[in-house]
Each structure stands twice: as structure tokens, then as C-alpha cells.
């Protein structure tokens, strides 16, 4: 995930972690030449055949791929085709590097979705300049793609991204038999807060709550989204019910400890949250909406049993 505070130019700077290049070529000499071309400024990985390249991209997606066309087994065109038809890898720019000089081959490669076509032997200055250009474009496009999924007020993910990710994580949990926990939470008496302190203060409070939630979830796969209004959701993949409980109580405590005054609340003199936590364990539940529904019911229960508290449950077995 790109840090939205980081300008694109800095993403190309090694201090933010070097951009990752994957060189795919069946000839050691070509790999060596490419490595020497990029070693200083990039983290350079290699694959010596198409299958290896696809497997690498699935587990550790690079920022850009330099792909040979003629290889035994899967050739470069087929590798590019497969990368471009896979949602997880379709955004990775592919540059063909080949001894082909045939315009028809070049056109074919570009039609498959490659961004460029470079002839061997490569001129190091030219290939470095082209890679830099395509990486800049890639990082800009990554930023734009992320902006579509961000909530304008709080800068955490928006509902659209939540809907997409919860479905993905539900499917992943089904495949891996790992638990999946979901927290839905709501700022208590937020309408009264707005009425008393004004909408500007309400927006400030939501921003502070959102950033506190975001900073409290430390694993890269955990995610905070604005679910709607003053409601937020936290997706916690591969998190057991007990571990998620610890996180839920921690979130409730941290929001209370922010000490945002709320004199219209009957729970406390500070802003508090009500929390619903639902966990799917292996083979429980038939549909992702059951998990969301359970978390919502538990949030409702927390609100109707005094607010400023956590209610939790585990999804029942699949029918």
C-alpha cells in the first residue's frame, strides 16, 4: 500500500524502499546485464521461465516486469496475457525486452497490454529512462486507484472498498480455513455531539476517531473503513475471536482515552463508541452478509445495553 502522503518522485527514491523490478529471461547473461543496469536504484528479482514469473507475481507483486518474449515453455506473450487477465497483477507494467525486430511482434505485445517494447541489446541509459517513466506512471495510477477507495473526510477506506475487501477476505478465509473477524462500531450519541458542538467539530471528531482506529491496527492485512455516517468497520483477517476481542476492547479504550469532550452523552463526559464484534471460524456461515449482519446485530445490542461497550459473537455453523 502506498502512503498517500508520499509524492511520486519520492516513491522512486530508495529511502522509501526501492521499487521492485522482476527480470524474466531464460538466459543468465541477459539477467546479469539487466541486474547491473538496475542494481543501484532498484530491488531486482529474477525468474528464468514463465511459470516462475507468474508464481513470483502472485506471491510478491513487483512494481514493473522486464519480460523476454522467446522462452521455452510459456513464452513472454502468454505470461503477459495471463498477468493482464488476473485482477491482482493486471496493473503491473510489463516491458518486453527482446531480440525481435518485427513490428508485428511489437504490436502483438502492446496489444496484450505491455507498456513498452525494448530491443536487445539494451542501451542501459534508454532502458533506465523508460523504466523510470513507466514506474512514475504506475505509482500515479496506484495513487488514483486508491483515492477512489478513500473516504474524503476521514482518509480511511470507504464503503465501496469495504464491500470489496470483506467479500475477498470471506472467500480467502473459506479457502484457507482461517478465522475472519469483523468489528462494526459507532460513535455514541453523535447526533447530539453535532447539535451541541457544531458540524465542524463533529467532522474533526470523526477524523480523530478514524485515525486512532487506523493507528491501532498494526498488521498490514487489517483494514479500517468508514461504514457510513459515524459508523466504522474493521476487517481482521486470520484473527481468532479471542484475539479480536482484545483488539475490540483496545479500540473502545483508546477512543475513550482520546478525551474528546461530549457533555450531551449519557455514557460518559467523553466521546465513546459501541462495538459489535463477529467472528467466522472454519466452515461457519454461508454468506459474507451473515457475518456483517451478526456484527450489526451485536453493535445494536451494545447500543441498547448501555453503549460504550463491546458485544461479541461467533457465526453459527453453515447450513
Amino acid at each position, binding site marked *: 500500500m502506498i502512503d498517500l502522503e508520499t509524492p511520486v518522485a519520492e516513491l522512486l527514491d530508495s529511502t522509501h524502499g526501492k521499487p521492485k523490478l522482476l527480470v524474466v529471461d531464460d538466459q543468465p547473461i*541477459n539477467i546479469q546485464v539487466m541486474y*547491473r*543496469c538496475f542494481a543501484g536504484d532498484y530491488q531486482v528479482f529474477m525468474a*528464468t521461465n514463465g511459470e516462475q514469473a507468474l508464481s513470483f507475481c502472485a506471491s510478491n507483486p513487483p512494481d514493473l516486469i522486464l519480460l523476454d518474449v522467446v522462452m521455452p515453455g510459456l513464452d513472454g506473450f502468454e505470461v503477459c496475457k495471463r498477468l493482464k487477465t488476473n485482477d491482482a497483477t493486471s496493473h503491473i507494467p510489463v516491458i518486453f525486452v527482446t531480440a525481435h525486430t518485427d513490428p508485428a511482434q511489437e504490436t502483438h505485445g502492446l496489444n496484450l497490454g505491455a507498456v513498452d517494447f525494448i530491443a536487445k541489446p539494451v542501451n542501459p541509459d534508454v532502458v533506465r529512462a523508460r523504466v523510470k517513466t513507466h514506474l512514475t506512471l504506475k505509482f500515479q495510477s496506484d495513487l488514483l486507484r486508491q483515492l477512489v477507495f478513500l473516504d474524503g473526510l476521514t482518509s480511511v477506506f470507504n464503503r465501496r472498498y469495504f464491500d470489496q475487501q470483506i467479500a475477498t477476505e470471506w472467500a480467502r478465509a473459506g479457502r484457507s480455513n482461517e478465522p475472519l473477524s469483523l468489528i462494526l462500531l459507532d460513535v455514541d450519541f453523535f447526533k447530539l455531539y453535532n447539535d451541541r458542538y457544531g458540524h465542524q467539530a463533529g467532522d474533526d471528531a470523526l477524523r480523530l476517531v478514524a485515525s486512532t482506529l487506523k493507528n491501532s491496527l498494526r498488521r498490514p492485512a487489517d483494514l479500517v473503513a468508514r461504514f457510513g455516517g459515524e459508523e466504522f468497520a474493521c476487517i481482521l483477517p486470520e484473527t481468532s475471536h479471542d484475539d479480536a476481542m482484545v483488539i475490540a476492547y483496545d479500540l473502545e479504550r483508546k477512543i475513550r482515552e482520546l478525551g474528546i469532550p461530549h457533555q450531551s452523552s449519557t455514557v460518559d463526559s467523553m466521546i465513546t463508541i459501541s462495538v459489535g464484534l463477529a467472528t467466522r471460524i472454519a466452515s461457519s456461515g454461508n454468506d459474507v452478509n451473515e457475518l456483517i449482519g451478526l456484527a450489526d446485530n451485536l453493535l445494536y445490542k451494545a447500543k441498547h445495553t448501555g453503549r460504550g461497550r463491546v458485544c461479541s459473537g461467533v457465526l453459527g455453523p453453515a447450513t
Partner: protein
Amino acid sequence: MPSRAAPNLWSSDPALKDLDAAGAMALLDDSVELYLDIAAAFQQEISDLPARVSALLKTNLADATRALHTIKGLSLTVGANRLSDVCRQCELTLKGLMQQGQTADAALQQSIEETLARAVALTQQALDRTLIELASPEPPVTAPQAAPAAPLETLVPDLRLLHKLLTQSDLQALDVFNALSARNTGHEQTLLGIEQALKAFDFGKAVVQCDELIRRAGTTH
């Protein structure tokens, strides 16, 4: 099918050089060290090219074409322009045959093998001369006594780092290995397996070799 007259696969371009090492090095950021490295690997790669292509011509034209295409590109990287051009001519001829659904007859097979053999021989001779010119002078005869090799277990931290990079397919493994070798004279034989696997860019094999050395270091500790 009646035998066709074999085409002339030898370029008539008088400007074509058997070897343009300076031009190739310019494309390698003028790195003599890198040129020496890849030229040596290239020499090995082309040593059996005529026989390899000849065998493929009898069994699989597509594979023969792919082998020629590969050497065409590699030749340009080391500046073996003559050989690259011959490979290009052969590749074009075979592609033409494949498009027409034909196979390479005996005359064409012989012509390709002979032309390749001639180009490879000229390239090898030119490379031999150039590599001698470029190589560093021999070390003095009275070389200082080599220090005794450090215990194997002292290599383990570097081997672990190398192992990690290799499993990630990270090419920084090459630099880490070079540094490891330079720091540990006396362990050339110990590290030979990894060195050979790295030269072939067979990182899987290098990982196995690394594991083996780390295990051995553990048992000798």
C-alpha cells in the same frame, strides 16, 4: 520432396565485425569486469551451437529457431555481430520454412551447420584474443602466503542472508555471494557448489547448497 539449393546464410556486409567488444562494452556502462564475465559465459554457450542446432533441425524446427533467436540476441550483447547476423539469417530461413509447413532438407541442414560452425569459430578466436587483452595481468609469482581459512561456522550469518535472498529470487544474492567469497579466501572449494549454481542462475540449487553448508557448519561447531 526434391532437394532445394541451400541459401547463402553468410552475410556479404563487409562492415560486419566478428567482434565489436568496445561497442558492446559501451552498452554495459563500460564495465570490463561485466564484459569479461558475460563473454566467458557466452563462449561456453556457443561452443556446441552448431551441433545443438543441427540436432534440433532433425527433430523440431521451432526449437531450432528459438535456439538461434536466443544466440542472435546474446551475440549482440557481447558484440559478436557476425554470429548474430548468421543466426538472424538462419532464423529467418527456418521461419519461412515453418510458415510454408516445410522441413529443413539435408542440404539446408548441412549449410546451417557449416555456416554456424564457421561463424562460431571466428567469434571464438576473436573472443580469445580480446579476453586476453582485457584480462588483468597475472599476479606476481611470489604471491604472499594465503591466510588459513576461517572456521566454517563464521560463514553462517552471510550464508543465512544469502539463503534468504535466494529464496526471494532477489538478485542481490549475487553481490552478497561475491562479498562472501572475497572475505573468505581458503573456502573456494566449500563455496564452489553455490558459485556454480549462481552462474547458471539456478537459485533453487543454490538454496540447497546453502542449506547443506549451514547444516555442515552446525555439525562442526
